[in-house]
């Protein structure tokens, strides 16, 4: 919200003040039984600047995914609004692309065709579609699997294809909802590094939902902590570590433990066992 730039220590590079994604006073109520309303998120305001990676953590059911759905235009907030590139989000739009824990690959499409899915819907020309998809597959070392079907790939490869599909539409903002929580720990680290490198290289802006505190710290520039339902943002942590493009190296930074401890504290981890697994991974 408040427009201070963040200094990245490794390059002394001042991050742009251009805000890519912004939530202004967003409240979301869902109709619950017997005429009551369930408040999923309440008066959430946040801004993600160009090229910034922000993580959102919080207890299960605190409305993180609701925020993502609002950002991608699938939900209309009850109050407030989301803005992408300064434009109010009125519905699904080509500026935003999201990726979930499930790879959501279409089993009847080859890897190449799956990567082209989004750009195909946005009616890009066939040649441009193919060019983009092939370039992305090369990037992710998946070129030789272009003609394979999803069931022939491992979980990690499928998730990489899903990431390639998300990037193929060249979105201003990526919304990532626990993208790696379904893959094993080693694969997850590899995927995290690939994501970090890709985001850095392409200068993409991302909002990442995760349950994994270490993932939040190693991948992002900032971590936002949400409260239990109704979800509000209760803390903001600036991750002042070098090498955002290398989360594996970041894991060894001495200050990481301090950040994780602070997050655990803010989340009342001692009462909530569900985080134990995520934090230690």
């Amino acid at each position, binding site marked *: 919200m408040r427009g201070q730039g963040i200094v990245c220590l490794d390059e002394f590079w001042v991050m742009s003040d251009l805000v890519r994604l912004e939530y202004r006073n967003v409240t979301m109520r869902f109709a619950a039984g017997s005429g009551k309303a369930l408040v999923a998120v309440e008066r959430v305001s946040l801004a993600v600047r160009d090229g910034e990676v922000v993580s959102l953590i919080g207890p299960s059911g605190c409305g993180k995914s609701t925020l993502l759905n609002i950002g991608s235009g699938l939900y209309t907030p009850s109050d407030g609004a989301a803005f992408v590139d300064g434009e109010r989000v009125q519905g*699904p739009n080509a500026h*935003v692309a*999201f990726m979930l824990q499930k790879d959501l690959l*279409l089993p009847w499409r080859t890897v190449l065709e799956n990567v082209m899915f*989004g750009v195909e819907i*946005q009616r890009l020309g066939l040649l441009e579609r193919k060019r983009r998809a092939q370039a992305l597959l090369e990037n992710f070392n998946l070129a030789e699997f272009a003609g394979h079907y999803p069931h022939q790939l491992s979980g990690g490869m499928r998730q990489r294809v899903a990431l390639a599909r998300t990037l193929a539409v060249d979105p201003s903002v990526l919304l990532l909802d626990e993208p790696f929580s379904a893959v094993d720990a080693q694969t997850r680290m590899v995927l995290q590094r690939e994501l970090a490198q890709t985001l850095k290289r392409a200068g993409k802006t991302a909002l990442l939902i995760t349950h994994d505190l270490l993932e939040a710290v190693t991948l992002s520039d900032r971590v936002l902590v949400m409260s239990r339902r109704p979800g509000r943002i209760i803390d903001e942590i600036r991750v002042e570590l070098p090498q955002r493009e290398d989360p594996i190296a970041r894991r060894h930074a001495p200050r990481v433990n301090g950040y994780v401890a602070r997050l655990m504290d803010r989340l009342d981890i001692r009462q909530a066992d569900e985080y134990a697994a995520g934090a230690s991974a």
Partner: protein
Amino acid sequence: MNRNSWLVRRGTAASLALLLVVLAGWQWGPGVLGIPVFIIPPLSAVFEEFLRMLAVSGLMTHTGVTAAEVIAGFLLGSLLGAFFGYVLGMSPTAEFALSPYILALQIAPKVAFAPLFILWMGFTVYPKILVAILIVFFPVMVNVMTAIRNVDPDLINLARAFTATRAQIFWKIEFPASLPPLFAGLRIASTLAVVGVVVGELVGGNLGLGYLLAFGEGQANTAMVFVAILMLTVVGGIAYLAVIVVEQRVLHYLPPRALSGV
């Protein structure tokens, strides 16, 4: 893969051996057990009857008529079933409004409509096709409807987030996702179509294998009844195989195991 080919070889050998045993039992069993020819005619008698019917009873014409009715009933019934399956799957309102009637029609034994259709349309091919359409309709419709309902909502949200139109969601997600269950329905439909046609032919008319069944029964010509049953099995088998061949082409992307269950 090795294990598989071994299984195929062993299985085929056992299958053929079983066939030989059954055929031999059919040929000599009745004589040994003292079963009269008009109850179970031996294999050779059935084969002679088959040749006689080919020559003088127009067996191929009757088979052709039945096959044509099966194809027509199967195609029309499947198309209608798929159409209503898509409509009801996509429109909860339509499903809510129509489901009691559909359920009633589904519970009613479809073959019982055969006499009614013959009263309406006379001794033509149409009542037979109509019974087949009716009987084929439901498994196809139910499978398609369920498939559309069960499409992962996240998949649809993904397409929507990419700014897909309703038509794009249907053609790029819902329709392809419905194909495996559609083909499962078509497999069942291909065998049910034969049932529908035969019942129609049994009830009235003077063409088709169903008519030969009734005719053979009237003449106490057991061998003729056997020939008709065998030919019906051949017609049904070809229809079933045709569905499988198309299915394997269309659903080539599925892992092999999912297709093998014949």
